């Protein structure tokens, strides 16, 4: 297998990695970059545990090849907290609302929610439910994950009441 050199940034840090063309982005992050916060729940694009942000968009890192990350800005769960480990608003909301049990799905939900909270549009209930249904959690039954993201959006003033959202549409 031929090897390729890929340059990209992860959580703002420039990286240069040599890898096989068939290595997935997830494996590149975990094994070549040592960022094991991104988890693999299925490796076939269904569970969303491996979700990371590539140039601002959520991507299932098990479905993208590492070599495709050339020149991309990648963000992973490791980039969410402050350098001293202080949790950000979203992470804190997951803790307060018990949005995790075993924590295996959590990286994917956090990155998905990060994207939701950073979009131009404010987040409303319909958009929240639509987006969150793209990932699987086996422990929580989802309600507390929705609660956590909703609370974070409110705290960040990114939340749109459904009624108001409806009126705007």
């Amino acid at each position, binding site marked *: 297998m031929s090897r390729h050199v890929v340059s990209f940034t992860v959580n703002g840090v420039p990286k240069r990695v040599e890898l096989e063309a068939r290595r997935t982005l997830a494996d590149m992050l*975990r094994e070549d970059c040592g960022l094991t916060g991104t988890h693999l729940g*299925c490796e*076939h694009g269904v569970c969303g545990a491996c979700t990371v942000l590539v140039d601002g968009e959520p991507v299932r890192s098990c479905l993208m090849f590492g070599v495709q990350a050339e020149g991309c800005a990648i963000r992973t769960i490791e980039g969410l907290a402050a350098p001293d480990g202080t949790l950000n608003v979203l992470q804190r909301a997951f*803790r307060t609302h*018990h949005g995790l049990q075993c924590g295996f799905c959590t990286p994917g939900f956090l990155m998905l929610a990060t994207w939701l909270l950073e979009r131009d549009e404010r987040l409303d209930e319909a958009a929240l439910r639509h987006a969150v249904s793209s990932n699987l959690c*086996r422990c929580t039954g989802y*309600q507390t994950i929705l609660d956590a993201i909703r609370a974070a959006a409110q705290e960040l003033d990114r939340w749109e009441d459904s009624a108001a959202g409806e009126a705007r549409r």
Partner: protein
Amino acid sequence: MNWVGRAIERFEDPALLRGEGRFTADVAIGARVVRFLRSPVAAGRITRLAPPPEMPAGALFVTAADMPEVGAIRPMLHRFSYRAVEQPVLPRDRVHFVGQPVAAIVAASAELAEDLVELATLEIADETAVADFDDALAPGAPTVHAVAPGNVVVEGFVRQEGVDAALAGAHHVETFAFRSRRQNATPLEGRGGCAGYDRATGRVRLTASTQMPHMLRTGIAELLGMPEADLQVVAPDVGGGFGQKMSLFPEYAVLVWLARRHRRDFAWIEDRNENLIASAHSRDQRHVVRAAFDAAGRILALEADILANVGAFSCYPTTCAVEPLMAFAEYPGPYKVPLYGARARGVLTHTCPMAPYRGVSRPVITFGMERLMDRAAAALGLDAAEIRRRNLVDNFPYRTATGMTLDDATYVEAMEEAVRLADIPAFRARQAAARAEGRLLGLGLSVFNERTGYGTPAFAARSMGIVPGYEVVDIAMTPQGEVEARIGASPHGQGTRTTLAQVIADRLGLAPDQVRIVHGDTDRTPYGWGTFASRNAVISGGACQAAADKLAERLKRAAAVVLQTTAEQVMLRDGHAVGPHDASIAISALAQQVHQRSDLFGEYNLAESASYDPPGTFSNACHLAVVEVDAETGGVAILRYLVVEDAGRILNPMIADGQVRGGIAQGIANALYEEIVHAPDGNILTGTLADYIPPTSAEIPAIEIHHLETISEATATGAKGLGEGGSIGAPAAVANAISDALAHLGVDIAEIPATPPRIRALIRAAEAKARA
């Protein structure tokens, strides 16, 4: 201040939220990668097994022939009817299910190892497979294992005198025959292990995604014939288990064998397909349950015929009897059943072995009893709540027909509260109005009890060769005054580090963040069992409480010396040991003095150990579901889901509610979506998460939870345990609601999951019947 009962945030969360948790696959990076060559057929004789023609340097190909000294997995059940089936770590001659590991292949990377698996040669002379119990029980069926002719691996039979007469003379006999399809517990993290060899000591450290590290160590040491002391098993962060990760899987034995033989580190992280087809399956059962009722709708007798497809082998340590025999022992549930008869059979087939899954057989028996109650109510002209009212146990302690003692509970009260909250008359009006518009709404109840926190006696009654039950806690205080508690049990997402710290903090007058719970490492924890059977809060909680109380006595004796009083006069509160007249010393200062100035105290450490082994208790709940069925598509939407549950004292309400919600999500999946489907030849048609479809947030509704709190005398902490209840109650509640929505068509749910095609088929059949 009491910490027990408060919804404090979990100590587990910050690392997990930062992506700094440590799961098995994280530890495995850098180890040699092991992949397994698996059987593509369900039954057959291996005729050729060979490595790829070219093996890269350092690659290994390991088969049974390489490990002649390794034994077979052979869990025991000391029952006359049990056939002790043996599962080879790697098979020598025959394969018994699709996905069974046949050879291990080792390479430097996962990619390479997978290439080699593709290039290896495995030829098998196919034999006729039996995948279903009907095929396996048919006359002349192929025998899965010679030790079990007829394919029945375990059988239970009881028939109390009077059952026949009661059935013959009853005012009404209700019979319900149903099928529960096969499930996979589907933890989001699959199985995996990393066996590291320590050349300095010759020991192996196996990091594995397991619920029972001590048991895994014992099992592997026995299989490999190695000193148990030379094996350390570590369960790091475990990404869910739900029972599936209790068992000893052959792959773990291979990893440890490789590490010892080659004196290096080897890791196997399964992929989702392996998990779905080859880990462990559950709940593949068919029951016929029959009850005799008197004219007032009271049960006179109950009989059940229970068949469980246990797959090709018997799981270690619980054995494959766990499903059939639990159904056998616990069928009557929360109901007064004066006379009982049952026959339960575990049937061997050429399929993936059965192992416990959250609730084990109770989701199935609750489905049976609760559907039976609704059907009988309809036949007798009673409403669903009334027939239950007349039959639920309301006088405690109650000795069941199968010899169990039901301790104080709220079977009737929980149901009444659920019925009140749901306002059933108002619902019936809505239902009628909706039907007039062509919309089909239904409401379903499910009342059940959940045997929890049972120790050695309950397991011993099952005649298991290995009898789990007790838990031991070693507790110690550091010279700075923090507490370390080492527990034998090992959680997989339950927040145990938090809840047990709450229990200990209360006994020692400390805050929970001064307590560290150490678990999941056989080198650092006392021998114990694990987290399963809704036992951790009760049993580890009770042991923690006892250990903390012993440590408190030591602290009080030491404080008495400093405060010049007697131990009886000392109280521990707010981080201080307080004597008469408010004289006090900080516990941290006291701890330091005991360790460093033992000359003053006559004792020189602050360590204790305690165990707990309770008889068990029963928590209970009523689930109530409101659904809408789309008659065109057969789709079901859950409009409302409410739970009234009684698990005694709740240690941490946030965590307890999380267990209830998560369990219900799995129970809804059981009712509507998830099914392992076999082709007749035993191949699996649902090998991805796009075919075996765990629900998303779009399918799982918000769940309303209401608590009752019966403080049980049967447990030390007053907690009853509730880890499984959600998944036990939900299938019945949802199926009853669907049946209610479709009752006017004469449709009745007798098979789960009630998928859209199944519901459509029932509706079509009912319509055809109406036309005829």
